[in-house]
């Protein structure tokens, strides 16, 4: 029997604080896998990672080994990477191209759509055994692709993807629509890292505006600007003014909208100090957008958001151009992958600039990422200490507006984004409706 019932789960979440067991109790983590991750649509990757027939990538989803592959008929398949015979991981290459997958243990073979392709020496099996049994590679019960983003659900009861995403669907559209071809690509592989902190600490951080001036103080120059984040090669347009003075809060940030929708999704408006791109490369981009979309081009080019987090485990960062998938491994271990995104059809210089921006800020040596990871690990370590049992999220508590559908809107450094995630967490964990 579970040691947590609805009452004890509810007692962990207060309007302005959460109990530290929320982050450090392994029992809670086990329940989260069953009640949150198994009840959500999970992002596996982007379909451009496997453009050609036979292309595949292997990946870890939660702790499960998976294969995403492109079959010879062009269809895309996500399968569990486990031989239907003795359970061996069928494919161990990170990526490649295969005619079929063959298990090295006893030679059982599978087509690139997961169908069982046969076994060596089948005559020793009883008549009909191989035909009757289902020896295909197992597949998650649900799979959907939305504008190149590949999702699976581990429970067949999960609501349809459209309902799950709700208004967040437009946060995918905003990214894809910036491409003159209406498509994104992921041609540069990914960063991978592991850190010793609970998955929710990162989730609370991504749309937290209270931390940058402290956590990222070392990436800020004397004049308050941060190194180039985005912009054409060599130009200064991408330098973000993080601080007015050393470690002072830039008041523009308090005006910035932090908002979210049911199912725990949250997003942050674009930084007001992010300057518009300009210059000859950007003009070329603009022309190709006008050619593709006519009068709608201007609206499609507009970057609305800085970060959108699709609860419980992935996000889009719009200026830097990447998706981040956050894999919970255990109560105190999370693995990230970050996949830079190319706007198909945009000038090559823009892609080079975006890739460099990702290298600078989000590689394992990235000058933003390293600060954040260090802070998350410190939280996990610090929470082992006795004394205060509660983690505080009280800034501007109650000032956010929450509508009848369960969407909220708050401002600046209010920590409203984290409180929204806490409410969604409780709803998931208690099996309640994700509305209000």
């Amino acid at each position, binding site marked *: 029997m579970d040691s947590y019932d609805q009452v004890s789960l509810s007692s962990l979440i207060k309007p302005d604080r959460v109990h530290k067991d929320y982050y450090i109790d392994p029992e809670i983590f086990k329940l989260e896998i069953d009640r949150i991750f198994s009840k959500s649509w999970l992002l596996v990757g982007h379909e451009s990672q496997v453009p050609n027939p036979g292309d595949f990538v292997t990946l870890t989803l939660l702790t499960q080994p998976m294969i995403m592959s492109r079959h010879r008929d062009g269809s895309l398949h996500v399968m569990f990477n486990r031989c239907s015979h003795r359970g061996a991981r069928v494919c161990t290459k990170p990526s490649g191209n295969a005619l079929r997958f063959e298990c090295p243990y006893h030679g059982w073979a599978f087509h690139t759509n997961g169908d069982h392709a046969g076994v060596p020496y089948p005559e020793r099996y009883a008549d009909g055994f191989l035909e009757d049994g289902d020896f295909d590679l197992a597949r998650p019960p649900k799979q959907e692709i939305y504008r190149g983003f590949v999702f699976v659900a581990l429970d067949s009861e999960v609501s349809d993807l459209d309902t799950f995403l709700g208004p967040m669907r437009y946060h995918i559209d905003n990214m894809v629509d910036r491409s003159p071809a209406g498509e994104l690509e992921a041609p540069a*592989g990914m*960063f*991978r890292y*592991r850190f010793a902190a609970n998955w929710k600490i990162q989730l609370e951080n991504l749309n937290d505006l209270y931390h940058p001036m*402290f956590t990222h*103080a070392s990436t800020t120059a004397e004049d308050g600007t941060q190194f180039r984040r985005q912009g054409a090669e060599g130009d200064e347009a991408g330098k973000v003014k993080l601080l007015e003075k050393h470690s002072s809060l830039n008041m523009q940030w308090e005006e910035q909208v932090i908002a979210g929708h049911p199912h725990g999704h949250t997003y942050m408006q674009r930084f007001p100090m992010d300057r518009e791109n300009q210059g000859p490369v950007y003009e070329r981009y603009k022309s190709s957008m006008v050619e593709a979309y006519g009068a709608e081009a201007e609206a499609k080019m507009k970057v609305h958001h800085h970060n959108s987090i699709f609860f419980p485990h992935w996000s889009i960062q719009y200026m830097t151009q990447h998706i981040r998938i956050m894999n919970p491994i255990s109560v105190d271990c999370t693995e990230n992958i970050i996949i830079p995104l190319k706007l198909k059809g945009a000038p090559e210089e823009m892609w080079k600039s975006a890739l460099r921006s990702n*290298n600078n800020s989000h590689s394992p040596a990235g000058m933003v990422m390293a600060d954040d990871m260090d*802070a998350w690990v410190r939280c996990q370590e610090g929470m082992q200490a006795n004394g205060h049992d509660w983690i505080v999220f009280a800034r501007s508590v109650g000032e956010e507006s929450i509508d009848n559908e369960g969407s909220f809107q708050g401002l600046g450094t209010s920590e409203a984004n984290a409180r929204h995630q806490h409410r969604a967490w409780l709803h998931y964990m208690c099996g309640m409706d994700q509305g209000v």
Partner: protein
Amino acid sequence: MIKEIEAFIYREARLLDERRFEEWIELFAPEGYYWVPGAPDQDDPYESVSIFFDDLPLLKTRIQRIRHPKIHSQEPPSRTCHLVSNIELGARGNGNDQISVFSAQIMTEFRLDKERSYSGRVKHLLRSTEEGNFEILRKRVDLINCDGLFETLTIPF
């Protein structure tokens, strides 16, 4: 010639271990860069993600950051030991004033009771200077775990 080049490369490793980062970046030519690919067998830094892909201005930013009083990911600072070996001279280029140098390197890092080890092949492209020394046009480090899972990195290899 190989003696002078070995001395240059050993000194470079020592500057990093002694946290003399400003002197380390002075070894680079104005157009020099430092590259640690994020995938094996890369021909071009724009083919894949890079762990480091820094020109001189970015290297300077990185060093300013390491020196910043509030760089908490270096509190306490990493201690490192760069062990360089297997030095071989490669092809000369551009007349006679450029030379490629191959080496193997292990950087061991200790911080907060954790010891981590990073191994890889290094390729330098060096240019002779008028003062009779060398400067780095390119330094490329191919880590054996370049596409693996990393924790936080701060100190260059």
